[in-house]
């Protein structure tokens, strides 16, 4: 259908407005990070870089950043391992309950965060506390990994589906054993999928607050730190700086992951979540 000139202009305008709507709040917060004044009034009086220095010197924010980085890296590593194991099983074997695996993997992210949080909280307290492991960084890592598995899983499954089995068979025919084939043939082929999955998992973990609330004990990740400091007006300038950091550290990985896969991976997980729910 050929749209009329007027319709095209209207659509272009609507698109521009929607994009502005999506990015405006993020830009506003970025501007506030440079705000000269302590109050959060608009318009901003002047610009300064001093809050960045103060944020770096703030021990609470710095500890929270370190905790968040550790939690993100730990959860990503665990999700990479568990997600790719499950992906290989589903993509390479036919077995009873195969359809259920993708449903199970999606469940922690498809259910409301508060339900997953409560369930994990109960699990950790009954499974780990007898061994002297209380709520803390370790439980945050395991909790985040639980809902990050799905992004690695989806990326690896999508890649394996396109990867022809015959090149692996050729490798075996030429005398390579299972390990050599995996290292030299399979792994290079799925490398970018793993990286994309890892980046998304990290972004997801770095930004998560609800499940974290239930699993962190007295540990503070960056989102938790922001949340507890929102009610302290004189901390808000530092909160603004931390907020910008969180946006950058969780958006840039998503962007790179996008470039790596050229598939709309970001929507695959929630989309599959609903698809899984019909089983």
């Amino acid at each position, binding site marked *: 259908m050929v749209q009329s000139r007027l319709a095209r202009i209207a659509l272009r305008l609507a698109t521009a407005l929607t994009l502005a709507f999506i990015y405006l*709040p993020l830009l506003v917060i970025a501007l506030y990070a440079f705000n000269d004044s302590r109050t959060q009034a*608009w318009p901003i009086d002047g610009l300064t870089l001093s809050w960045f220095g103060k944020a770096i010197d703030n021990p609470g924010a710095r500890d929270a950043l370190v905790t968040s980085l550790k939690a993100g890296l730990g959860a990503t590593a665990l999700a990479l391992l568990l997600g790719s194991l499950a992906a290989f099983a589903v993509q390479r074997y036919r077995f009873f309950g195969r359809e259920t695996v993708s449903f199970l993997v999606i469940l922690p992210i498809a259910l409301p965060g*508060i339900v997953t949080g409560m369930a994990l909280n109960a699990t950790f307290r009954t499974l780990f506390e007898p061994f002297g492991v209380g709520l803390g960084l370790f439980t945050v890592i395991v909790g985040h990994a639980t809902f990050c598995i799905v992004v690695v899983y989806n990326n690896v499954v999508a890649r394996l589906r396109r990867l022809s089995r015959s090149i692996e068979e050729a490798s075996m025919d030429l005398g390579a054993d299972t390990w050599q084939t995996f290292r030299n043939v399979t792994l290079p082929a799925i490398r970018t999928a793993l990286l994309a999955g890892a980046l998304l998992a990290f972004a997801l973990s770095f930004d998560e607050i609800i499940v974290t609330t239930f699993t962190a004990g007295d540990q503070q990740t960056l989102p938790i730190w922001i949340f507890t400091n929102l009610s302290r007006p004189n901390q808000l300038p530092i909160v603004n700086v931390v907020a910008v950091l969180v946006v950058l550290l969780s958006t840039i990985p998503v962007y790179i992951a*996008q470039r790596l896969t050229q598939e709309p991976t970001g929507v695959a997980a929630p989309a599959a979540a*609903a698809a899984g729910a019909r089983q």
Partner: protein
Amino acid sequence: MATNELTATPPRSTAGRRLATFLYRRPRLQLGLLLAAPMGWLVIAYLGSLAVLFVAAFWRLDPFTATVVHDVGLDNFRTLWNTDVYRRIAFRTIGIAAAVTLTDAILAFPIAYYMARVASRRVRGLLLVAILMPLWSSYLVKVYAWRTMLQEGGLVNWALDPLGLKGPGFGNTATWLVFSYLWLPFMILPVYAGLERIPSSLLEASGDLGAKAGRTFREVILPLAFPAVVAGSIFTFSLTLGDYITPQLVSNNQFLGNVVYDNVGVANNLPFAAAFATVPVVVMIGYLLIARRLGAFESL
């Protein structure tokens, strides 16, 4: 010697090789090894505790000793059904979730249409990335940004002031606005995918048969894109139902999630929290059943 090069030498038998051969002959064992860790965690730990949580909804809290009594009964459900406040909270949550879904459907359509049917390949790729980036990230920062913009002396009031208007302040309107903002990308993407799948020939045929643009839109595009809108609505609806941070930050009104959170965190009444948590889950299951009827799953 030339003959030597032609003979295949059997590979040296290392421990790794022997293990590889051993596993190669036992595909069931390979499968077991692959699945043990992820399924062990997800089924035993996660699914197991979900089941316990569900059972806990039928237990009760002894009001005097503040301990959980493992008597099975429907007390919690009776309380949440008969208490006015809880019913109001449930209806408020569901009502705002519905309003958010409708708003996002309306907001998403033009940009999705532009991406799918007007934009060049390059622009389309750029727009996709621009919408995907904020989809996963910075949930809390976005809510916080809106809190700053909506407060007294914030950007919204400043922008509306010359028109003689005032912003909504904090409350249900703010909650609706922020949720609509947060979940908009979740609606745009499925609608875009749905619109892109419509074959151009159908639209041309409609035009050839004499339909003007408006009629083609109403009678060809809208019905074909509807399942995609329903698919997107699954996200906007369910994400709103389960949230409790946004209502806490931009309004004083409670949502389903707030009641659950207060009961598990503050009052330590896990049975009641678990019972209340079944409300969004049951509503969502009903919603998914309707969505399947409307063909939403085929457009995911």
